[in-house]
């Protein structure tokens, strides 16, 4: 379980996050939604240690990420898997080398063990045939799947996904969402997804948190979200003409 308490962050005097608190449960897909510039990515970066919050703390199974010794912090980092928005694959390495990279750097596994683990992860995301290809030779959807394979190769306890379906066609988006949900349930991972994709909200959003101008305005499950009375959330949800017509 991940717990965030009173997270605040400001850049050049402008508050981006205003005292956000929440709990994210194990084995569930937790979604953080909101429009562009509402602080979703900053919150994610605060949680994974890329941006230090001005105030508040992040607890990983009770371990305070920002108030612990370096070794504990390193061990928490090694329990994280992160899927970045653009995949963040290393350009100079093949798909296989990208997935193997954390094993090379952080474990003492034998070459055979690494090969088996990489093959398993690539097979899990359906990319075993693309193992020898370079990131520049694969599509955006495939890059996301390689990113997922790299994120799960170390058997993470926590999986963070920053807009996993941005820039993808609707069909590929659904496949990526399904893959993340399957992996979350299969390995009992605490998954946090940043998105503004309404399909993800309805399909895989087990717990949803809505951010608006750095504030948490709503929290709940996906079956409740369409019944919300929060005007900002209603505006966000039904900004799409099709959804608006369906609501009416």
């Amino acid at each position, binding site marked *: 379980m991940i717990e965030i308490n009173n997270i605040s962050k400001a850049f050049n005097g402008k508050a981006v996050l205003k005292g956000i608190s929440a709990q994210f449960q194990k084995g569930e897909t937790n979604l953080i939604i909101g429009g562009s510039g509402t602080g979703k990515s900053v919150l994610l970066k605060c949680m*994974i240690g*890329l941006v230090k919050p001005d105030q508040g703390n992040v607890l990983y199974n009770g371990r305070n990420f920002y108030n612990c010794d*370096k070794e504990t912090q390193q061990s928490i980092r090694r329990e994280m898997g*992160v899927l970045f928005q653009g995949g*963040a*694959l290393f*350009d100079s390495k093949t798909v296989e080398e990208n997935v193997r990279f954390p094993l*090379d*750097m*952080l474990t003492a596994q034998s070459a055979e063990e690494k090969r088996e683990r990489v093959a398993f992860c690539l097979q899990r995301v359906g990319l075993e045939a693309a193992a020898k290809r370079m990131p520049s030779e694969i599509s955006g959807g495939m890059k996301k799947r390689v990113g997922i394979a790299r994120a799960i190769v170390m058997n993470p306890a926590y999986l963070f996904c920053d807009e996993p379906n941005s820039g993808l066609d609707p069909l590929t988006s659904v496949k990526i969402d399904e893959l993340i949900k399957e992996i979350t349930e299969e390995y009992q991972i605490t998954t946090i997804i940043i998105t503004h994709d309404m399909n993800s909200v309805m399909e895989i959003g087990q717990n949803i948190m809505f951010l608006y101008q750095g504030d948490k305005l709503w929290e709940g499950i996906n079956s409740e979200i369409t019944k919300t009375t929060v005007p900002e959330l209603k505006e966000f949800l039904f900004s799409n003409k099709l959804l608006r017509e369906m609501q009416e």
Partner: protein
Amino acid sequence: MSVIGKYFIFLGTLFGKGEKLSVYWRRLMEECVGIGVSSIFIVAIVSTFIGAVSCIQTAYNLVSPIIPISTVALIVRDMEILELAPTITCIVLAGKVGSNIASELGTMRITEQIDALEVMGINSSSYLVLPKVLAAMLTFPMLVIFSAFLGIMGGYLAGTLTGVITERDYLYGIRDSFVPYNIFFMCVKPFVFGFLIASISSFKGFFTSGGALEVGRASTQAVTNSCISILIADYLLAQLLL
């Protein structure tokens, strides 16, 4: 001043907790190929022609009957060893290697590849930058020795083929009044310049933010700052070591 302070803090992070030694060895070899071996061609072309032009222009200006013609070769040799091979070669390398390092790291930064390393708990500056700095400090002196040899050979070819100096006079001139200490001085310079070029360019690339425009800007700044630092270091080394 804050940028200089940030640069020194950045240098400190290179020697922070690193990864396995085997990882660094592999990265160092990759960088030696990327920085050193891939620069051989441009260094060879530039050095040979600079040596040739130095010989022709020195001969053109030395018209006094009281100065022996072998002095042309002596001047070419000392110019090559003391200044042209170490400084001009490193300025050329600042353009080639410096812009390459800054744009590589800048692109890695804006495409979140550096973030990915940090999230994994890897010391990204040490993993990415330290092998580049070491590779530059290791390969630049070799490239400069190669450059000095080709420069003197370029002078020989240009001088003998155009007839401004005979083969015998040239060979006599390059051995005349030779000071072995100058070779040591020639090797110290690229060692220092390699450190400056690789570290400044890495610093510029590593802290890039924004998009493609900023990567281009970081690359330009890397080359400009590297060239300025080479010239300042060149003066300081000449004052200290000669």
